């Protein structure tokens, strides 16, 4: 359908639109007009993504003189693929109605591992070795050397891409990762470098958060984006965590050992160069004297990760004299490693501010703050000079240098915590020195400063006033949309008791109670026998899930569950989890359904949809609180209290409930969909906990469903499923329009004009 929002003609690829989608577009348009930032909460299952894409692309079309670029950030690669698939539908529609002028170039961008088409490079095991394998074939010095020694293996795709030079362009269209790979294979061009090159030309870029938030990656990929860009963070309820993680780094004993080995190798290389090619080291020295950390423009193959500190915090000065010479720098690093080793040898938990850490480092190891700050740049320069390609082997020393640079750069918003062992496993010594960032606003600040509009949107941003404080920005629009329901297609329930009326909870003192475990099990046994298709269960943690499944296995509950449905489980191995999910979907497609056990805050809870028959019931076992004794968490809470006046308890509950809402929200994808949500913990019945749930869940949570036992829940579930299986009127009943047609919209626009006239 095509309709107008004020002066913008919006092309929307469906025949109908939800009223909230329309409102969402109106708010979004105001944000774009105001060239400001906004915060929009809209329940899952109301088509946020397509509303967003369709408005922004239409906005671009209506302002041909100042074309805006859309940078769409997703949390995961599969969300990226989904977004691009939706964009494809939209793009086809726009081209159909407007012709070639509506053509855009949209690309998804990911790492080499997901884009490479060179089979030999892909054979490498993990991401880092793929990166290194690529670099071994594409680094400028390797390619230069290959002209002399023909037996050096290069990458044909990269060579062809380089040969095509400026002509290597993607024709307009929407490219998923798969499409990029296919295109690259077809043309013989490297899809990874092609995509990176196209970033500056593309109208829409879809990539991961980290490509914009993590300075290490953003420094290379997102450097050249223009100010006239709209940045969208979709599913952004966890954005604060992404931000603080991007600036945190830790050092373990294995890191130090690895870093020492790296230094030995670097020393060896320096000696070799001194003997053969002393001029090169001298040239580097001279360059550093002149104040250039890196030699001019690096070709694509040479680039490594960028500086871990944020761009405006990086000093544009000459590298300090004491680390200009390669050997001296290695000595400094050795002293640093030694100092860190001593600090790790602690018996107690230590917490320190970066300032005091730097000063004690200065007094004990004689390394100044400024020296620390330049560690990363100096290391990168040295590695380029030494022509090191197997970057994956040098990760430990890089980690240490990242740590040094960050600790030397930031005096506030961070703390250093040294723990001799994990709180929960005191018997296993595993000392760790963590530099943890507490202030989410640090990492996102450059994004807010650089781009004209930043849109933060998600299904769960409640309480919506908390996010501007956490990220310290002022949105021009901050709104939470209600979901207009055609029918009551979600059925949240709070289960507080088992069939035996004993309370259930994952509270620390109750979670291992056999009665609770049994009641949780019985709940599932009953539910799998009445719910058709998929059932998803979320547990508060891996260890809890592990324990409870083991108990269910011993007591035969698991066997009873397996008589009804197949069981699939999220494990800590991503590959296995991915396969389990794939099998789960196939089992649901078969018709009998299956059960998926997953973990709140886990990878599955973050990004996998259990829509339609893939999830008719989701059970949230317990309240997914963070581990409150964690030293890092305590430090962060303290910082939040001191800086933003956010109470610890409030933040913890907020965090737990947004995770729970996130988990249960996975079952709804559109209004035609339906699903039940069981919050199985007595603590959910308390008002202070429950009220933190997003409004669209609360509005369906009836008072009668607040304090249920297993048998009551089963009764309600039966009724609900029977009701939902009936055909219904999609356009809404009783005067409430839940689906608008083009006519409705035109009428609405008219009345709005009339309202204004009066």
């Amino acid at each position, binding site marked *: 359908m095509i309709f107008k929002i004020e002066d913008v003609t919006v092309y929307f690829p*469906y025949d109908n639109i939800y009223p909230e989608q329309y409102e969402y577009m109106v708010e979004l348009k105001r944000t774009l007009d105001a060239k400001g930032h906004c915060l929009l909460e809209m329940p899952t299952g109301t088509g946020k993504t397509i509303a967003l894409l369709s408005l922004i692309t239409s906005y671009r079309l209506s302002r041909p003189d100042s074309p805006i670029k859309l940078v769409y950030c997703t949390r995961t690669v599969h969300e990226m693929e989904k977004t691009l698939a939706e964009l*494809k539908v939209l793009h086809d529609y726009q081209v159909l109605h407007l012709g070639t002028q509506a053509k855009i170039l949209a690309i998804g961008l990911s790492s*080499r*591992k997901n884009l490479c088409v060179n089979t030999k490079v892909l054979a490498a095991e993990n991401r880092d070795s793929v990166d290194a394998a690529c670099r071994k074939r594409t680094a400028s010095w390797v390619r230069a050397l290959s002209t002399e020694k023909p037996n050096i293996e290069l990458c044909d795709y990269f060579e062809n891409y380089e040969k095509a030079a400026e002509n290597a362009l993607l024709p307009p269209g929407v490219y998923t990762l*798969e499409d990029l790979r296919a295109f690259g294979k077809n043309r013989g061009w490297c899809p990874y470098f092609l995509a990176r090159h196209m970033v500056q030309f593309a109208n829409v870029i879809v990539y*991961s958060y980290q490509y914009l938030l993590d300075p290490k990656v953003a420094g290379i990929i997102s450097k050249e984006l223009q100010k006239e860009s709209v940045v969208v963070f979709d599913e952004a309820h966890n954005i604060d965590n992404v931000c603080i993680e991007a600036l945190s780094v830790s050092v373990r004993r294995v890191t130090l050992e690895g870093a020492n080995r790296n230094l030995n190798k670097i020393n060896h290389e320096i000696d070799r160069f001194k003997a053969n090619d002393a001029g090169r080291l001298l040239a580097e020295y001279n360059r550093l004297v002149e104040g250039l950390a890196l030699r001019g423009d690096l070709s694509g193959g040479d680039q490594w990760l960028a500086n871990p500190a944020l761009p405006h915090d990086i000093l544009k000065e000459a590298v300090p004299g004491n680390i200009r010479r390669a050997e001296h720098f290695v000595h400094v690093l050795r002293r640093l490693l030694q100092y860190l080793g001593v600090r790790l040898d602690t018996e107690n938990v230590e917490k320190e501010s970066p300032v005091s850490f730097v000063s004690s480092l200065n007094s004990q190891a004689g390394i100044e703050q400024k020296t620390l700050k330049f560690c990363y740049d100096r290391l990168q320069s040295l590695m380029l000079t030494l022509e090191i390609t197997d970057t994956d082997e040098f990760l430990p020393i890089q980690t240490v240098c990242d740590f040094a640079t960050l600790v030397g750069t930031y005096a506030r918003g961070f703390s250093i915590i040294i723990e001799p062992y994990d709180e929960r496993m005191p018997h296993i010594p595993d000392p760790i020195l963590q530099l943890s960032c507490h202030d989410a606003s640090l990492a996102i600040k450059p994004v807010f400063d650089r781009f004209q509009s930043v849109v933060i949107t998600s299904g769960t941003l409640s309480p919506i006033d908390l996010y501007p404080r956490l990220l310290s920005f002022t949105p021009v629009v901050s709104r939470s949309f209600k979901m207009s329901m055609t029918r009551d297609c979600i059925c949240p329930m709070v289960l507080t008791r088992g069939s035996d009326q004993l309370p259930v909870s994952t509270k620390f003192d109750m979670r291992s109670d056999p009665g609770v475990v049994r009641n949780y099990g019985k709940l599932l046994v009953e539910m799998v026998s009445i719910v058709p298709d998929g059932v998803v269960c979320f547990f508060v943690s891996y*260890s809890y899930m*592990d324990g409870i499944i083991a108990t269910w296995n011993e007591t035969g509950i698991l066997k009873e569950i397996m008589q009804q449905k*197949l069981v699939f489980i999220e494990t800590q191995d991503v590959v296995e989890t991915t396969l389990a999910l794939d099998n789960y979907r196939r089992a649901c497609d078969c018709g009998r359904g299956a059960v998926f056990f997953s973990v709140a805050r886990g990878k599955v809870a973050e990004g996998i949809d259990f829509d339609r028959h893939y999830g008719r019931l989701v059970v949230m076992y317990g309240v997914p609180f963070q581990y409150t004794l964690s030293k890092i968490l305590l430090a962060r809470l303290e910082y939040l209290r001191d800086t933003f006046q956010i109470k610890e308890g409030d933040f913890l509950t907020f965090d737990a409930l947004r995770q729970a809402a996130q988990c249960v929200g996975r079952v709804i994808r*559109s209004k035609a969909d339906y699903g039940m949500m069981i919050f199985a913990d007595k603590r959910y019945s308390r008002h202070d906990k429950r009220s933190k749930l997003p409004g669209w869940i609360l509005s369906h949570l009836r008072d009668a469903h607040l304090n249920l036992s297993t048998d009551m829940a089963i009764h309600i579930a039966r009724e609900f499923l029977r009701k939902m299986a009936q055909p219904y009127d999609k356009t809404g009943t009783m005067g409430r329009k839940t689906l608008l047609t083009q006519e409705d919209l035109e009428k609405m626009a008219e009345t709005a004009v009339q309202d204004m006239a009066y």
Partner: protein
Amino acid sequence: MAGEQVEKRGVKYKSSIKDPGTPGFLRINEVMLLFVPNDPKSDSKLKLQTKNIKSHKYTKEGSNKPPWLYLTTYQGRNHIIEFENYSDMHTCRDFVAALLKSDEEPKKAAVTTSTEQLSIKELELRFKLLKENSELQRLHKQFVESKVLTEDEFWATRKKLLGKDSIRKSKQQLGLKSMMVSGIKPSTDGRTNRVTFNLTPEIIFQIFAEKPAVRQAFINYVPSKMTEKDFWTKYFRAEYLYSTKNTAVAAAEAAEDEELAVFLKPDEILARETRQKIRRVDPTLDMEADEGDDYSHLMDHGIQRDGTMDVVEPQNDQFKRSLLQDLNRHAAVVLEGRSIDVDSEDTRIVAEALTRVKQVSKADGETTKDANQERLERMSRVAGMEDLQAPQNFPLAPLSIKDPRDYFESQQGNVVNVPRGAKGLKRNVHEAYGLLKDSIVEIRATGLSDPLIKPEVSFEVFSSLTRTISTAKNIIGKNPRESFLDRLPKSTKDEVLHHWTSIQELLRHFWSSYPITTPYLHTKVGKLKDAMSNTYSKLDAMKESVQSDLRHQISLLVRPMQQALDAAFQHYEADLQRRTAKSSDGERPNGYV
């Protein structure tokens, strides 16, 4: 023999010896003998299903006759084919002879056949059904061989058994049980520490499917290195070591015994398969790809211990395997189902078959671009929002619900299948409509004057049945599980049951023949009636022959059968009278020819 065929040019086809013959081209393959005349206008084209060939004769070389091949069909027709030379004739003759030989067995099973359109496959299926079901066989023998029913009539009511679905269904593999392999619990004798495991082929299959390494080890070791029993003993020893969760002991034992170590080590074949599969996974689920983008958690970057992610004891110990992995693996195998069609007791054969299947599927995985394409299409389909647009037509999988037409087909089977008599009687739609209209008008005018069963009769049947049940219960009141039938001598019991099934069969045919619309049905009903009266008298004889103490019971049992037969006879008589009356009026009943 499949796919083979013989082709000859320059042959002549004669319908009789005196026929001068039409020159043409002959092709014989395993289902069809085809003669195409050179002159396209000639009408002597011959198409003959090879299974209809009853016998063949040929002229001898050296005799003064030309090289002829005589073919006789089951329909009693003769075909003569004249060849250019003897060698051509011999090749064709040999081919036909081979065909006839291979056809012999199903032919025997089918006993008599008037079925021109039956393929060998169908015959085989019928034969198989008869073999599997002795009761059916007995009925078949009784009625078909005694010509009460024809082969077609007999099977027409059993379309469901013959239907395509049933062929598929009969081939449907039994899935795997949902029980975990690790759930196999040993039995103990209670006195010693000995435990005994009972392994069924099913369990072995499951173990092999879930643990390719065990399967491979079996192929490698048994029987060259150890006996099957030793192998399984070792396997369960390893399982025991797992269950104790004592990795130190497991490691120690594995170091000593390399065969045991095979079971304890992580499964490499499985790991390989996993790597294969991950490439084919739905991209909207591919969490492994996320790892590729996650530079925040580059070695030791990001937050390690803030309590969001909990720690589990290190998993790198190679002698540790988690229950969760087992569960996932188990569910995946159950979902895959039983992929092999080997029903063997021999463990080795099972193991090898599984390995083969895996290799094939692996090869498939490498070549299927289609699957990839389908995956992408599916993704784009899912990307759309279903309720914002007109409904799409999703590919549907048919549900296996009993087809209601089965019922009608079985009722009208005889009419539809009337092989010869009705052939010239192809009514067009209008005629059929006219007939239907007439009969509706008739019924409207006269009402259903002729209820199938008279109310009195049905009442009697009903009350007597009730009485039978109650008396039977009274007599055997003490032991409800023992029915009256069990007290009869076995031979009598079998006889009663057999009569019951045969009466059912006859009645079914009888009632489904009404209204009689063709002479064919007319003769059929006659035959059925004879057979029924035959059975009736047999029932009487049986009643007489049993011992006196049982006679009452038997008569009670037999009574409903006889009553049902009586009802049929009555109907037959009434119908006959009506028809004679009508035909004497010179008026033909509906559709009667």
